[in-house]
């Protein structure tokens, strides 16, 4: 996909082209009644040429927003969250980053007991998996209920990425279930994420 540099500003409702010539990308939509592609955002128009091996050779038009918006989690995105509360059946967390971008508003998430790890999901003890203040990497399962997103750490590379011990030092992971305090050498239980390697 390469970009054809052209800085044309469009506003919602402007016709971008015929459906037979272009495909509607982000910020554009196709009106079925007259087969025209319209813009639905205010911003800069970009045309993306299709990859040479795809069967559809129409270029995709998309509109890039003129304003930077905070990131919004959606199902499937990897988020970084801070655990706020650990209960017997679930833990709640505040989402801080979606992918590489930090969020602007507050989004809360819930990690349910069955979503902590991939195996033996009925034997999970929430208190041996997370503590309030832990930074976890999780995937967004669904939009959840009205209050929170549902998050999951049921993958090797997901789980606690940074945690402080009771002594106040940042702990070092020693296995996928344990972390150790560098000051007191005390071992605490966590659902540890496998990072790198």
């Amino acid at each position, binding site marked *: 996909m390469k970009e054809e540099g052209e800085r044309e500003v469009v506003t919602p409702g402007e016709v971008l082209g015929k459906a037979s010539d272009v495909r509607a990308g982000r910020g554009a939509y196709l009106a079925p009644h007259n087969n025209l592609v319209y813009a*639905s955002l*205010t911003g800069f128009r970009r045309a993306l040429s299709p990859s040479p091996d795809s069967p559809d050779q129409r270029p995709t038009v998309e509109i890039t927003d003129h304003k930077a918006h905070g990131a919004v989690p959606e199902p499937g995105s990897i988020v970084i969250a801070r655990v706020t509360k650990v209960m017997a059946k679930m833990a709640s967390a505040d989402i801080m980053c979606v992918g590489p971008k930090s969020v602007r508003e507050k989004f809360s998430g819930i990690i349910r007991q069955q979503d902590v790890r991939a195996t033996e999901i009925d034997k999970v003890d929430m208190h041996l998996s997370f503590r309030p203040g832990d930074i976890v990497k999780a995937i967004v399962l669904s939009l959840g209920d009205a209050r929170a997103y549902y998050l999951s750490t049921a993958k090797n590379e997901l789980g606690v990425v940074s945690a402080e011990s009771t002594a106040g030092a940042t702990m070092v992971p020693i296995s996928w279930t344990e972390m150790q305090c560098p000051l007191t050498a005390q071992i605490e239980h966590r659902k540890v994420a496998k990072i790198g390697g």
Partner: protein
Amino acid sequence: MMYSDIGRLNCNVSYTTFATPVRAQGSDRKEFSSMLHKALEGAIILETFPKTTVDVFALVLESGGSDLPVVISCASLALADAGILMYDLVTSVSLSCLGKNLVIDPILEEESYQDGSLMITCMPSRYEVTQLTITGEWSTPKINEGMQLCLDACSKLANIMRSCLKEATTSSQE
């Protein structure tokens, strides 16, 4: 609030206490809020933001006639500026019928003596009417004439709104 698959739109129109000739006369405009909601809901692509509410607040600083059409057009500009996905801009124009004459964009005095009124809200580039309100007695040819006048004005207004949006976009980039 309940979970919803599509976005919600919440509109509120209010007047300042000094907006009207008589103080605090028009402070409660529930019907304006619902009219604004009806005018905008068809234009916003609500499917694109589940479990989200878009709040639109309009405050009329000074009421000089044709308030609602101005509120609607202004709200659609604000939505476009906010980056809410929309099918089209929404423009609105009203006219008053005074005796045999049709006057477009009436002022307060004209509105208070009007024999009838016609307000159109439309999506100009799709050429669709999202709201239409007529009061007073009208014959069909007159409705025809009034609608055409308003629709022409709507498309002119849309051009102005578009150039205003574009100007704001380019200047914010520099």
